[in-house]
């Protein structure tokens, strides 16, 4: 899958602004970014569900503008909002969807049985979808997207709104699919999810790629190895002033109302230094840098919408 200067415009609004993207066979690729960053628009173009406004896009070597149908027959799509038929049974949802791909009934029935087993829904096969839990519906949507044995799986926020058990089950299933060679493109708000699932990821902001790389590369490039968090219980503490005093100890610092974050390669050493300079936080925490730190650095802390 290759995109060059891929652009999506809605009227005057530029949702995706000339991004370059290359995803190899069998790779798991993540798109991170705040709401409205252009993730879903990018995904819908890649999924050949939304026409490209500018640039070039090739999926499986074909042009979505001409071969959208052929491409879609080889990809599985898990949309952000479920599009299940709530009034049909679990099995009928798979049957109907498989028939869209023109698969014979017998083939769909065999695969449905395997997929319901795979997503732990076998005992609900003949129940209507409506009363199922959010996690079950999401699993069914994933099972449905696999009915055509896709080479590429496109997942738009697959685990948003799910409880931890359901998330872990889904991660496990997606990991197995990856091992089987299915290419995955995933958008998510969860940094732990991105870290778990993605070989490579891009942080999107305002329709552009703010950064791209493997999770460890991004942490190495945009954060430090460790973060020292100094916490102050007294709400009147001027963290900015403290920052002026000890900021130089760290590569980068961030003063929040009740906390001072010091980005450093050795948190303990920095803490000792800070103590020596007379800083007395109520508590101090040394932790490893995460993708979340990278994300917040690249896209800012303020709410987008």
């Amino acid at each position, binding site marked *: 899958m290759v995109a060059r200067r891929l652009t999506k415009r*809605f009227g005057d609004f530029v949702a995706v602004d000339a991004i370059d993207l290359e995803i190899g066979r069998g790779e798991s690729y993540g798109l991170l970014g705040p709401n409205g960053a252009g993730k879903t628009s990018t995904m819908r173009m890649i*999924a050949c*569900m*939304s*026409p490209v406004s500018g640039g070039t896009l090739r999926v499986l070597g074909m042009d979505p503008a001409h071969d*959208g*149908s*052929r491409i*879609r*027959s*080889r990809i599985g*799509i898990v*949309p952000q*909002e*479920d*599009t*299940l*038929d*709530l*009034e*049909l049974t679990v099995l*009928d949802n798979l*049957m*109907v*969807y498989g*028939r*869209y*791909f*023109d*698969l014979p009934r017998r*083939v769909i029935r065999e*695969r449905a*049985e*395997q997929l319901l*087993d*795979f997503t732990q829904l076998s005992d609900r096969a003949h129940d209507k979808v409506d009363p199922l839990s959010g996690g079950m519906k999401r699993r069914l949507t994933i099972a449905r*997207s*696999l009915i*055509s*044995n896709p*080479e590429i799986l496109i997942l738009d926020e697959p685990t948003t709104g799910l409880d931890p058990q359901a998330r872990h089950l889904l991660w496990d299933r997606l990991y*197995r*699919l990856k*091992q*089987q*060679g*299915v290419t995955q493109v995933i958008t998510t708000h969860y940094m732990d999810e991105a870290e778990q699932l993605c070989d490579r990821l891009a942080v999107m902001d305002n329709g552009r790629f703010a950064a791209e790389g493997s999770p460890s590369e991004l942490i190495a490039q945009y954060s430090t190895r460790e973060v020292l968090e100094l916490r102050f219980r007294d709400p009147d503490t001027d963290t900015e002033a403290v920052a002026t005093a000890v900021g130089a100890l760290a590569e980068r610092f961030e003063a929040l109302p009740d906390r001072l974050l010091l980005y450093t390669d050795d948190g303990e050493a920095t803490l000792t230094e800070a103590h020596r300079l007379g800083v007395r936080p109520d508590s101090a925490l040394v932790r490893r840098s995460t993708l979340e730190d990278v994300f917040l650095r690249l896209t800012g802390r303020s709410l987008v919408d």
Partner: protein
Amino acid sequence: MTMTTRAGALAGSDRARRFGSSPPWVRSMRYWMYQYKRTWRGSITTSFLYPVLYLTALGLGFGSLVKTPVGGVRYLDFLAPGLLASTAMQIGGNEAMYPVMAAIKWLRTYFAMLATPLTVVDVLVGHLAWIAVRLLMVTSIYLAIMAAFGTVHSFLAILAIPVGMLTGLAFAAPIAAFAAAQQNDTGFSAIYRFGLIPLFLFSGTFFPITLLPGWLQPVAQATPLYHGVALCRSLVGGHVGLAGAAAHLGYLVGLTALGFVLALRSYRRRLVT
């Protein structure tokens, strides 16, 4: 089920896949058939019940008060073919309103279809084809009940089935175009109030439009239901004129075609962004 077999089943491309063994619009029509599995009993019962109720109450009951022939025939014979066409209009209109809104907003079925090899044309043609199947069911049952009431006087009456279907589609296609442009279902009550119900009452189903005030007659003649009713009536009564039939057919085919073009535009605007 072990993962080794799943791995085999899932890895790589699906060699068994073949294109075109059934046309794409047939595949999208199948969805509506699956949906219908849930409600077919009630729907078929209604299709039998309504003609019996209407023909009994209005044709036999009220009709017994009408002593003079209407349009040259007894009132039951005048009314029945008009009701067949009116029923087709109602079915065509209904099926193009709430189900279209559901497929866009409530269940998002159209979007599920568009995530597969199906295209917007397949989605629209499949839905209209399903509406045609429903119309076939309803008009066939209607004609059978008319025969049981003894109001079928010509073999040409069998053609009232395709004409009824066409009448239904002449409403379904433009209404689908309207429905796909709506943000919610409030507009639909306007369609009933200012469209389907006045047409049902004043398009010549219950009385000849020659009884309308002079200025209203051309208005009634311009409505699609008038053409469906008139054509069905002439076929069932066995007094069809070629030129008149061609004009009625031309009107209904033209409106269906126009509705289809508008619906395709409206679907594209709504579904492909």
